[in-house]
């Protein structure tokens, strides 16, 4: 009798609550039992769809949810008591769970029947994804509010999914992944305020969201090391006696970092191999798996692309003999040795974080971020030098013909730009329908709870019923705790070692700088709400190494802010990085405000790149441009030409 397979996930959501609802219902009729909701960036960062910062972002990378009315539409005809719901939501997790709980109340579904997960791990947002709102300490407090509430009121809910996934996406080593993730989990557990007797139950509700890359043997060992260290932590630090509560429960989305834009069909093989790392070892097997789409580096995937990813899982689970065996690594000293190695390295890194006062201090001081930026710089350099092979990119690049998979229509989803209109109208109608007295009184209740330290969940549920919007809820947070900007890690990151090629770029930078009368100055900007900053970070770091003076202000800037920085700093060149697909809205907005030359990097389909170049962008770089030397060399020449210093 083979084992039951893990749960097959499809991460989805787009345009409007109504459109996403139709998608979910279709997926459920095909046998999917768990929804995995992608929210758009305004919802993740606490803005309504009509906020200026939401321009170009509403409905783009996920579904917009502005109020309980949107939640009703999203789950229309979907039985909350039977379908589990995973929400990839962090800074606004308290609010989205409040909306979900309020919806259950409206439908007379008891809270203890609700199953699902809120990601609710804000720590990794400061380190990689960037959708945080307030500082680490108040964020942690919201996380613990929710955990304490959920353990009592929604006993089947996973209130927090501590993420190592995003750390790998920004270049973390296996040891860093384990150490930083466990440190983050410890910070949450240490802050939980429950009677000592309840702590084991809380420990048992903590789950994880992990990543797996192409080095799948190492990844299997990493998951085994993770499992052991978590078990030990439960036993020794938190006194959890019951082994069942110490199980390392984790879900997985495999690595997108290694997926390539060149010969994108190769990614189908990559995704399949990546899935092995988290399924091969029965004792450390994932409970839930999502695979990315093969064409992610090109643009937004179509439903067909997601189906292909689902099929890969089904083939692995049902056609191979994977599920028929006990743990196949049992007794392998090769696996054991590698596992022990990773475990030891993770322990050492965890000790370093604890020496620095734990996760919060290591985030506030920029220690973790800097370590990740440096690890990623090493990864990027290894690809550039060819030490790390990427087939079709830095090795075996001669292809017989262009990929037929991307021939027609570019092989990606083209989003309807007018879908957002429906959302804006619904939001206006919703605002008009509410009773302002109730909204104000509910927001007052929330403000008081935030200020006096009482649990924010019930006041948030009251806000949900009163018709408060996502923006209003998050504004209250901003008002009470202030907005936060996390360390970029770039200013303190150490550089790569020098090379002859780098030396050549430096000499050219010196030469152009001398002609300009001052050193070449570059502004690296990330407009919009997209917080995926590792591309911007690597360019900033490398440009500094090449001799540029680099201004990098971090993520989430408006075009006006970028233009103001460019003017005040007197830069010679601007580099924008956008990965959310909002480049056609954001780049022209910046172009209209500045007079210095501008280059853009991101996931930008060729047709869009052409449009941007026609509008005056000097160069467009996409994931296939992995050679930082070349990019920075070109940037020097662009600046030199524009300022008559060539």
């Amino acid at each position, binding site marked *: 009798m083979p084992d039951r397979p893990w749960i097959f996930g499809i991460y989805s959501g787009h345009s409007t609550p109504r459109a996403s609802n139709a998608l979910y219902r279709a997926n459920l009729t095909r046998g999917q039992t768990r929804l995995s909701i992608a929210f758009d960036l305004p919802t993740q960062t606490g803005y309504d769809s009509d906020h200026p910062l939401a321009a170009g972002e509403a409905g783009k990378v996920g579904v917009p949810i502005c109020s309980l009315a949107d939640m009703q539409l999203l789950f229309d005809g979907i039985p909350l008591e039977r379908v589990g719901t995973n929400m990839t939501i962090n800074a606004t997790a308290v609010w989205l769970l409040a909306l979900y709980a309020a919806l259950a109340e409206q439908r007379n579904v008891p809270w203890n029947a609700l199953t699902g997960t809120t990601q609710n791990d804000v720590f990794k947002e400061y380190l990689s994804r960037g959708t945080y709102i307030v500082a680490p300490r108040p964020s942690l407090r919201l996380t613990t509010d929710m955990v304490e509430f959920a353990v009592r009121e929604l006993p089947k809910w996973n209130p927090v999914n501590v993420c190592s996934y995003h750390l790998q996406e920004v270049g973390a080593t296996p040891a860093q992944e384990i150490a930083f993730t466990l440190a983050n989990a410890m910070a949450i557990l240490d802050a939980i305020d429950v009677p000592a007797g309840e702590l084991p139950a809380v420990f048992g509700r903590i789950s994880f969201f992990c990543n797996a890359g192409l080095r799948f043997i190492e990844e299997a060992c990493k998951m085994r090391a993770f499992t052991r260290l978590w078990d030990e932590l439960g036993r020794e630090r938190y006194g959890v006696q019951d082994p069942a509560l110490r199980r390392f429960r984790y879900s997985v989305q495999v690595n997108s970092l290694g997926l390539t834009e060149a010969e994108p069909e190769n990614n189908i093989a990559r995704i399949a191999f990546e899935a092995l790392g988290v399924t091969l070892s029965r004792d450390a097997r994932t409970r839930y798996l999502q695979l990315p789409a093969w064409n992610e580096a090109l643009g937004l995937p179509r439903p067909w692309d997601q189906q292909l990813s689902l099929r890969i899982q089904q083939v692995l689970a049902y056609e191979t003999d994977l599920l028929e065996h006990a743990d196949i690594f049992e007794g392998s000293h090769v696996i054991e040795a590698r596992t022990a190695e990773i475990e030891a390295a993770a322990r050492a890194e965890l000790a370093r974080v604890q020496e620095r006062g734990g996760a919060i201090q290591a985030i506030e001081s920029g220690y973790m971020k800097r370590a990740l930026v440096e690890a990623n710089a090493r990864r990027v350099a290894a690809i550039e030098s060819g030490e790390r092979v990427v087939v079709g990119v830095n090795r075996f690049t001669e292809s017989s013909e262009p990929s037929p998979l991307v021939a027609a229509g570019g092989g990606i989803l083209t989003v309807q730009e007018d879908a957002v209109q429906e959302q804006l109208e619904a939001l206006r109608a919703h605002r008009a329908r509410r009773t302002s007295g109730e909204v104000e009184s509910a927001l007052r209740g929330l403000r008081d709870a935030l200020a006096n330290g009482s649990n924010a969940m019930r006041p948030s549920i009251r806000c949900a019923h009163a018709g408060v919007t996502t923006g209003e809820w998050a504004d209250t947070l901003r008002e009470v705790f202030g907005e936060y*900007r996390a360390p*970029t890690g*770039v*200013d303190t990151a150490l*550089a790569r070692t*020098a090379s002859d090629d780098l030396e050549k770029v*430096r000499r050219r*930078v*010196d030469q152009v*700088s001398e002609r300009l*009368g*001052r*050193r070449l100055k570059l502004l690296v900007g990330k407009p919009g709400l997209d917080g995926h900053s590792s591309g911007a970070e690597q360019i*900033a*770091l490398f*440009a*500094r*190494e*090449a*001799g*540029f*003076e*680099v*201004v*990098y*202000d*971090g993520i989430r800037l*408006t075009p*006006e*802010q970028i233009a*103001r*920085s460019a*003017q*005040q*700093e*007197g830069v010679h060149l601007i580099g924008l990085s956008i990965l959310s697909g909002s480049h056609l809205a954001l780049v022209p907005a910046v172009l209209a405000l500045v007079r210095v030359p501008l280059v853009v990097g991101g996931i930008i389909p060729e047709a869009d790149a052409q449009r941007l170049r026609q509008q005056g962008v000097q160069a467009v770089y996409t994931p296939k441009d992995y050679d930082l030397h070349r990019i920075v060399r070109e940037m020097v020449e662009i600046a030199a030409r524009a300022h008559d210093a060539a």
Partner: protein
Amino acid sequence: MSTRTARALDELAARVLEADPAAVAEALDRVEDARPQALAEQRELLARLALATPADHFAVGVTGPPGAGKTSLCAALVRHWLAAGRGAGVCAVDPSSRRSGGALLGDRARLRFDADAPVFVRSLAARDQLGGLAPAARAVVLVLRAAYPVALLETVGVGQSEIDVESAVDAVVLVLQPGSGDTLQFMKAGILEIPDVVAVHKWDLGALAERTRADFEQVLAISPPPSGGAPPPGVVGTSAETGQGIAELAAELDSRLAAAAANGQVARRREAGRAAWGLELFTRRYGTRGLDQLGGREAARRIAEQASGTGLDAFSALATRAGLA
């Protein structure tokens, strides 16, 4: 200089004095230009600005060890001034890499204000000045002071800049981090003679901050009084986190600057600054050989001190006297 150029400079200076951001940006780009041929117009522009700068505009240096919270203190001060209806210019200096000459200018991220606020932030790399002020810092401060009631100069926080900042501004705030043991280091290095106000920052740390303040006051009590009749430095506990002490620090600066302006200390300090600036520029360009032609550093200093205008005029006086202009 042609009349056309002169008129253009008149116009640029007038717009800078009105705090027109585009003009301030242009003026800063010009004064940062290190090419010799840029010097004449820089001198003219700065002279115009220096002459017309309102008497109640001041420059304040913010210095202290890395990690003490200089940038967060600057941000809090600017916010305080904005609330009181005063604009501010900030010149933030970061170190340059010795190997590549490049720099990461990261302070801006923590100096964010409302879009329409009258604040102007220019980040500078220290460039070849190891641990010192950036070469253009003095000129940048002069432009910012012409445009805004307060110009803040935030130093790198190590080495020579701690000393040099004194002659680049009208008052210096030394930022100390509680419990770092910096007090003793500063005393040894003679840096405690420089600040007008000491901010014991991160005051929200509580007892540790109190102890640092007590330590510092003890050191002050046994130190000789500052030369030149200036009052001993004030000590204020500040916190960017809670906003504590920021108004007090601003008030302390205001009253000290008003008094120093009234008794002529500000003018004397600016004269000394002009000489230091001219000498610095001269030495950078012509080295010790240039100094030798003037009969050594002290003789050169006396020449520089007799010049009027800005540091660039002092530089020109030195270069002319040395037959190098």
